[in-house]
């Protein structure tokens, strides 16, 4: 599904070239649950954003579902992205002005679902996450764990094949973190959703089927 070959990414700072990613070779197949680990500044998030096509790269080859990302036009890229990718953030990134219901509904708006379809899909997922009673609350009325669940529900609503999670449990306590991880495992096992997560915690990384270690922008071979 994801095929990265010799990926380099750098920024120029005061005449020096600072590498964010160096020579990344990575293949992730459909249905995998991959954890990316590494210390702060090792390039984990950069790699995740790159996989999610939110960020570009300077050298190398990236094929997403058999298509070369580099050669795609902005519009096609965003189309592929919209159809296949859901993002989950450490800081949840819910829209403060929208209710739980509206936050979850938002991705559907950008995919031109009809109002009745949207309604059905959102109710469905609210049911699944036991959020029916909270659907009219605003993000700041929820606990962190609840907010992250809304974030995951929002990522799942458009039925993506790939979920990219950037330290999804980073702001949560361990019990909430466990719940999220179990949810990911279940999604991966039951629905075959490919999951790539960035994490600091060995324990969370262990939920994945494969762990990738990054250091200073390089993949460490273990």
């Amino acid at each position: 599904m994801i095929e990265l070959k010799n990926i380099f990414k750098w920024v120029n700072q005061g005449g020096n070239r600072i590498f964010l990613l160096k020579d990344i070779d990575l293949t992730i197949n459909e249905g995998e649950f991959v954890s990316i680990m590494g210390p702060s500044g090792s390039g984990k998030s950069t790699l995740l954003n790159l996989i999610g096509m939110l960020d570009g790269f300077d050298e190398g080859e990236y094929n997403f579902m058999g298509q070369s990302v580099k050669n795609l036009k902005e519009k096609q890229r965003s189309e592929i992205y919209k159809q296949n990718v859901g993002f989950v953030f450490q800081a949840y990134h819910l829209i403060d002005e929208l209710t739980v219901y509206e936050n979850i509904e938002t991705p559907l708006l950008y995919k031109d679902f009809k109002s009745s379809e949207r309604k059905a899909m959102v109710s469905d997922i609210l049911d699944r996450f036991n959020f029916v009673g909270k659907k009219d609350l605003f993000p700041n009325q929820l606990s962190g764990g609840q907010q992250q669940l809304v974030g995951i529900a929002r990522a799942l609503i458009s039925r993506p094949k790939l979920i990219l999670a950037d330290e999804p449990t980073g702001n949560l306590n361990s019990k909430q973190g466990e719940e999220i991880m179990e949810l990911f495992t279940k999604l991966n096992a039951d629905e075959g959703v490919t999951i790539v997560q960035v994490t600091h915690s060995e324990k969370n990384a262990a939920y994945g089927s494969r762990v990738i270690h990054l250091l200073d922008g390089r993949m460490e071979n273990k």
Partner: protein
Amino acid sequence: MFKNYFKTALRNLNRHKGYTLINVLGLAVGMASCLLIFMVVRYENSYDKFQPNFNNIYHVITQDKSEDGESYTPGVPYPALEALRQDLPQVKTGALFCNFGCQMAVLDPSGKAIQSKKFVEEQGTFFMDPEFFEVFTYTWLSGSPKVLAKPNAIVLTRSTANRYFGDWKQAIGRSVKMDNDMVYTVEGILEDVPANSDYQITAVASFATLKNNQLYGYTTDWGSTTSNFQVYMLLPSAVKAEAIDQQLKALAKKYYKNEDANKRVNFLRPLSENHFDEQVGNLGNHSTSRSSLTTLSLIAFLIILMACINFVNLSTAQAVGRSKEVGVRKVLGSNRLQLFWQMLGETKVLVVISSILAIFLAWLATPYIKHVISLQEDLHLFTVQTLVFFLLTMITVTLLAGIYPAMILSGFKPVLALKNRINSSTIGGLSLRRVLVVLQFSISQLLIIGTIVAIAQMDFVRHADLGFNKDATLVLDMNNDSITRKKLAAFKQDLLSDAEVKQVSFCNDPPSSNSNWGTNFAYNNQPDENFTLYMKYADESYFETFGLKFLAGQGYAKSDTCTGYVINDCLRKKLHIKSPEDAIGKNFRTGGNPWKKIIGVVKDFNTNSLRETIRPTGIVSLKKVYYRAAIKLSSSNIIRSQEVIQQKWNRYFPEYVYNATFLDKTIEEFYQQESQMALLYKIFAGLAIFISCLGLYGLISFMAVQKTKEVGIRKVLGAKVSSIVFLFSKEFTLLILIAFVIAAPLAWYFMNSWLENFAFRIHIGFGVFAIAILSSIIIAWLSVGYKAIRAAFANPVKSLRTE
């Protein structure tokens, strides 16, 4: 989708109540001002447009070229009417004679004057022939233009007839007596003329009557022209005005005699120019220069621009706060265009809210406009044009205010946005915001300087030394017929018997007046001089009544005719007489009158408004042209004096209407238009300052949030409150100074050209600019101060913890 955007928008506005309030207030005030100014401009432009032939009606103007330059008269010689009809058969030619101050006495069926029904039509009484109604179109409730073909017929408008006879339906066949002379029978009723017409017709007598009556000076002589006799043409659409102008030139040569033929021509002025032509003027109660309407429109545009600038400033400043939402939406699959429309939509929501408030504000203000610019009727807010205009304003404002912030916001890179890496420097709008603030301050300083200059000039005009005393002087309009003339001496005696009355003078005009009588003249047995002499005809008390000062010689003794001339110093200089004393005893004559001596020279006084220079003027006694009585009162009990004078008037002249005005009032009316403009400038400059303060306040509160960390660090490092406040103020002070450098020369240029309308004017000094810059800085500091001080006093521990 739309619903989602709409909800986000409303909740966002609700969350940032302060910014919303500032934006809504600014936009609402701006849009309301714009709307009001539009209504005024539209109304001024609507004059006489209801005439179906508006675009094809032309007014025949007379132009005289002389050494003094060109002068224009709205009138033509009486015989021109027949000549034009004969020589230009392809056009319809109508004429009107407008007589101001006509005494109208309503007669009862038996032919006796009703005491309580005496009127003077303020807008004049008209004489017209039927052809006039082929050029201009009016609605006839009864009768037809044909009735004006016969002598002694009169047509009244509906409300005039109601006023005269109680009910217009009963007016036909009744009679009025005009100027205590001729009796006219009411033969027709016209619908009232709309207020937005410069031809405020109330009573129209048949032109045939005027021809037969010496009272109004009808003559077949081509040599004399009165501005009251005007000719209008309706051109068929195939005929060009230029072609007629050519023919008029030829006709001038054919008909004007002697030297007139060389210097006098006629030309056509389109009716559309009528309301705005200050050179020729019009018969209406006010003319408006196009330049003042342009200025007003410009002010409206500037105000709305300032409100938009506020909006752009505040939204780009706020953009940092919105960056997360933009990032999230992009990650969720929104593209740039969708976000662009969303952000523009939010602007639209705000504009709609502001519009509602704006309409409400305009609705509150509408009834007052007519007093500010002295219109005769109420303006209407809810007309198709104003609503269309308002919609256009809304769209323009949305685009002007919304596009830039929407572009900035929708362009955020999601990764940066989500990492909170977007701040005011990455937006890059800081320099743009500075430019906008400078622009805003330039506009408000331009308006401040303009207002100060306009007010100072109007103040100067009001208190200028006119060279004579205008205080506590009551001027009565008089008739001048043989019966009146006989009673003058007794009337004067009676008035003077009152201790409150200091002096009484009969004259044709007070020293300063809008209209002047001009004549050719000769000095020292020479042939006629080549410039015009302006005449004041007055009795011997004139000099004392108005406090005119003699430089040499003295006034004349009581006489009904000319015994000797008093001239002003301006004439003395123009004739190159060395000293006032040298003029005394020299021969002098006006027109073809016999030579008389110059017996006095008076110090210059303003013969016209202060817009014009002092004219060479002569003063003589000539009883048959005294149309006014000037009564100098002691200022102790003016109200009682007025009552006494009116009682005496009614005793002496029961058949005439008592019509008195104070001279200082009349003189103030010369500058009505300027005063109104000054008032409008004041109002709108105030609004502009208000809007720029709002913007500044919004911006500084944003800056305070942005600088929280900086202030915290500085305080931890030991900065004093005063230095923090200075940190906030110095940038704005600098921006204001830059704005001043831009605004000051512009303001000087505009106001200097405005002042050039006045022959007597103030000079724009350093003080005006000092006031403008100081007031701007003070206003800015006041709006910045509170926020700056609050930021400076904030506990640094708190502000640093949140980082």
